[in-house]
Every structure is written in C-alpha cells, then in structure tokens.
C-alpha cells in the first residue's frame, strides 16, 4: 500500500505512504486521485510527509492530479522535504502550486 486516503469535512487527504514517489508508483497516485474525485471530492490535499525522493514521474502525477481537480484553490500539497522541494523549484512548479509546510495549514486552507 503506497497511498492512504481519508475524507474529512469534504476534504480528501491523499497521503503518500511510500518513501519514494517514482515512476514505479506514480501512475497509482493518478488513479487514487481520480477515484477520489469520482467519489465526489472537489477539494484535495496531497501529503508528502513520508516521501524522501520524487522523480519527474511523481511530479507528472501531481500535475495530473491538479488538472483533474480543476481549480487552484481546491488543490494543495503539504509536507515536502528538501529534495522533493528541489524538483518543484527546478521546474518552477513551486510558483504554481499552493504548498504548505504542515498538513494542518493545508487542511485549514481547504476548509476556509
């Protein structure tokens, strides 16, 4: 099990439980988010707290999840470690996503 989903107050929190979000599991993330949206969620947070390493496939899956969700304010990411943040910085995706340093902040934002 590489992902865990909890829905609370209408917000779906998708936690990546694997330490690597790489090409071998990135397609699963897309699927998990797509299932969550199918089930009715419109506000989504991706929690990367356990992720030590992410490659461009992981980034692609996050971008795809964002596109599926549709609106910027309804999609947030939290708990990026330094090396994960680097891939967002290198690709300038840090300017595009709403990124929070804790899940509480991210969750509060989605409930606002």
């Amino acid at each position, binding site marked *: 099990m590489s992902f865990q989903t909890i829905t609370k107050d209408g917000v779906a929190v998708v936690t990546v439980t694997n330490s690597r979000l790489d*090409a071998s599991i990135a397609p699963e993330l897309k699927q998990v988010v797509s299932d969550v949206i199918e089930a009715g969620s419109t506000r989504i947070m991706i929690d990367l707290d356990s992720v030590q390493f992410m490659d461009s496939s992981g980034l692609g899956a996050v971008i795809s999840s964002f596109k599926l969700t549709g609106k910027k304010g309804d999609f947030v990411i939290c708990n990026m470690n330094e090396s994960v943040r680097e891939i967002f910085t290198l690709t300038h995706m840090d300017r595009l996503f709403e990124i929070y340093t804790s899940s509480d902040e991210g969750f509060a934002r989605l409930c606002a």
Partner: protein
Amino acid sequence: MESGKINLTIESDLSQVQHVGEAVRVLSSQLELDGAMPSSVELAVVEAVNNSIEHAYASECGNTVEVSFEYDKDCLQISISDYGTPMPRKIVEMLDQSEVRMPSGHVGVDSLPESGWGVQLLKSVCHRVSYARCNRKNNLSLSFKRAAEKHPITAA
C-alpha cells in the same frame, strides 16, 4: 579519495531503479560536489535509468541497464547504458543545447505537461550531459564537478 569506480547493473524493471538511486546517493555523498547535492545526483541518474527502461526498452522486462560511477579529483562521471532503441535525434540535439527549458509559471494549468520533464531536469542538475551510441550500446554520460579540495593552511 583521488579516484574510484564502481559499476551497478539492474534489470529493466521500474521497481528496481530505487536500488541504483540509493547506491548513487550514498556514493556521491562521499564526494564533495560543486553545485550538486547527493539528492540531485540521484534524481539525474533515476531520470536517465527510467528513460532507458521506458523508452529504449519500451518498458519490456528482462533487459539490462548499466550504471558506471567513476570519479577523479576534478570530476564525477556517471554513465547510464542500455542496448535498446537509441534516443531520437531531436532529444540528442536538445541535450547538446546549453539552455534548460521549463514551462513558464504563467502557462495555463490545463496546458501544463504531465511528462517530458526528465531530460530538462537532467540538464539542470548536471554540469555536462553527453550521449553516444557505439556497437548497439547507448550511453548517456552525466558529469558533475568536484569541489576544489580545501588544503590545510601550513604555517610559513
């Protein structure tokens, strides 16, 4: 250490790439590099190995990807080799261009690409990237500069 070399080999299976990534990260953490973290070296190598598996071998298991990790006092060179389909010429040309192209932050969300980031990421973390094919072997070579050694100050 002045120089060293180790070769790593895995099968063309995406679930095995993490082993190369972890080994490369710990090996490069022993060398002080100029402008690259061990995690960036890992990222570059993982992107290259993923590409060998997904593109050169079209995700077919049972093939081999070789990674050679070699350094001297100035430079770390990591070569990723496969025996599959060569890189298309337009990608090789892009490797040779010095600039890195990332979509700008102003691009609309819907037009953001979900793939095609790998080669740009490679280029942005390595000092130099070069590609060659020889005897059916494709070889992508990534170089990183080593930080100049700090010599102990000797009293005059």
